[in-house]
């Protein structure tokens, strides 16, 4: 099976601080994969490198085995099929919910194509389907700014799905959600996986447990342990740096 994402020997430091230290990680196609680790373990920097926001100092990052992600910018990574969800829900606040989804919809992103774009019936149908999926059909004409925190999280997930990505990078999706919402989110991510690859960065152990997937523990910028949640939980080092606290 070919890999979706391949990181090998990646390094990145900021002013002498090694945020990523010889990190290697493989995400298989269709895999659901959780990344955990204490603050400062390099989780966000890792996502920045994958999405082209930050360039690594050294190391290899490949997409679908052959595309070098270190030469791609944020928009380029999105066009390749990497969708990223921020920790803090980030939506276009002064646009309507429907417009938020419409902008994310897979389409030609060129300036002039966008200028003369007219929405087709298919696209409208896709928007309606996604709004239904994230339960925001009734709020489609409201400004995104007026949504509740949880609704914004859902809207952002809807936007990600609208991009039709091959890989979703999801940063702490459960933050600020109620227990019920958390469980529903885990369920949704499990549904999405298979068809798409999903990487979830998370703190919340209950949530990771609910995902029931392969776990990678990051510590000081490199992989400390990998395997099932039970497997890594049993690792004394992991307990020392993270779980034990």
């Amino acid at each position, binding site marked *: 099976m070919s890999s979706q994402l391949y990181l090998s020997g990646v390094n990145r430091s900021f002013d002498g601080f090694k945020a990523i230290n010889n990190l290697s990680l493989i995400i298989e196609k269709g895999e659901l994969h959780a990344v955990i680790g204490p603050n400062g373990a390099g989780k966000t920097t890792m996502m920045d490198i994958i999405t082209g926001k930050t360039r690594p100092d050294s190391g290899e990052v490949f997409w679908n085995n052959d595309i070098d992600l270190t030469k791609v910018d944020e*928009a380029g990574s*999105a066009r390749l099929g990497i969708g990223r969800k921020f920790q803090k829900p*980030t*939506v276009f606040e002064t646009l309507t919910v429907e417009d938020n989804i419409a902008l994310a919809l897979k389409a030609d992103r060129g300036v002039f194509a966008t*200028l003369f774009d007219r929405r087709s019936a298919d696209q409208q149908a896709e928007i309606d389907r996604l709004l239904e999926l994230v339960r925001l059909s009734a709020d489609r004409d409201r400004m995104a700014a*007026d949504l509740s925190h949880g609704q914004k999280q859902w809207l952002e997930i809807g936007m990600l799905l609208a991009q039709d990505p091959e890989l979703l990078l999801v940063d702490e999706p459960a933050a600020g959600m109620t227990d019920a919402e958390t469980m529903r989110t885990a369920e949704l991510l499990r549904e999405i996986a298979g068809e798409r690859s999903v990487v979830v960065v998370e703190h919340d152990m209950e949530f990771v447990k609910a995902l029931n997937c392969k776990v990678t523990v990051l510590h000081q910028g490199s992989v400390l342990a990998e395997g099932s949640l039970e497997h890594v939980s049993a690792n004394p080092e992991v307990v020392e740096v993270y779980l034990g606290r």
Partner: protein
Amino acid sequence: MLQRLIDRRMGFFLGALFVAVVLIPLGNLVIAGQPVPSYVVALLAKYLCYALLAVALDLVWGYCGILSLGHGAFFALGGYAMGMHLMREIGDRGVYANPDLPDFMVFLNWQELPWFWYGFDSFIFACLMVLLVPGLLAFVFGWFAFRSRVTGVYLSIITQAMTYALMLAFFRNEMGFGGNNGLTDFKDVLGFNLQSDATRSGLFVLAALALTAGLLISKFITTSKLGKVLIAIRDAESRTRFTGYRVEGYKLFVFVVSAMMAGVAGAIYTPIVGIINPGEFSPANSIEIVIWVALGGRGTLVGAAIGAIIVALAKTLLTGWFPEFWLFALGAMFILVTIYLPTGVLGKFEQIVKRKPKPATKEVTA
């Protein structure tokens, strides 16, 4: 399509503009006793140029969040391009009666026309330059700035530095644009005497048409999907990038369109006021444009035009009545509008008319 471009605001404004275009030349040229004096026609035409300039700035600031403090530079460049043509049209009617060189070059003992004046004999060429020169400057400047992600106040400050550098450059006699005095003493445009009432009214109508075109083009852009991308950039630039849009390309597009629009405004302004000089590049002028937009209502296009007209009118009246008071008024306007009127007079007015809080006009933090 028409519905998309002409909403209620736009309809009201264009309607009012149309009435003015009919009545004012009528009052100046046809009705006996000239109820509308010629100087008023010129003054109103000037306001319309300002309005177009304000719309241009609103396009980048109101929608895309780029606060340019250098839009006066694009306006002035358009003005200079037209001014150069008008200088050529003077021909041998200058003080020195030199058929080949403008007066100021004769005065500086220049022997021949500098290369960059070639072509300005042609009106068409000059019109092309009115669009190209500001457009090109905006393209080069924007290409550098947006690509390296200079944003916020940093961008504002370097746009200010840009117009300041141009002002210093145009003050130099060696530049070949008339130095301190700029370009002036124009006689006519396309054979029409600039002093005649008919030409003045003609320019007024032209300014109104340009403003209408500018508003409609801007409306087209902002109501398109691209317009929504611009707002998306303003709201969450990073999210827009991760959604797959190359933000710099969008910014560059709207910045160049806006600069060209400002150039057109300057080109019409020059024959109306009969002079273009380096003072137009001064940073203070460019900041004043911002208050027009802020006062009228950012991100409304029509509001920007109204704001420009209100401020320009206030300036004319106040500097006439109490010259000392004008800067106090302008300064207070800057302070009060930013603190108490974030949606501008248009936003406030509509809020009052609707008698209910506007839905979801979250404070736009550019």
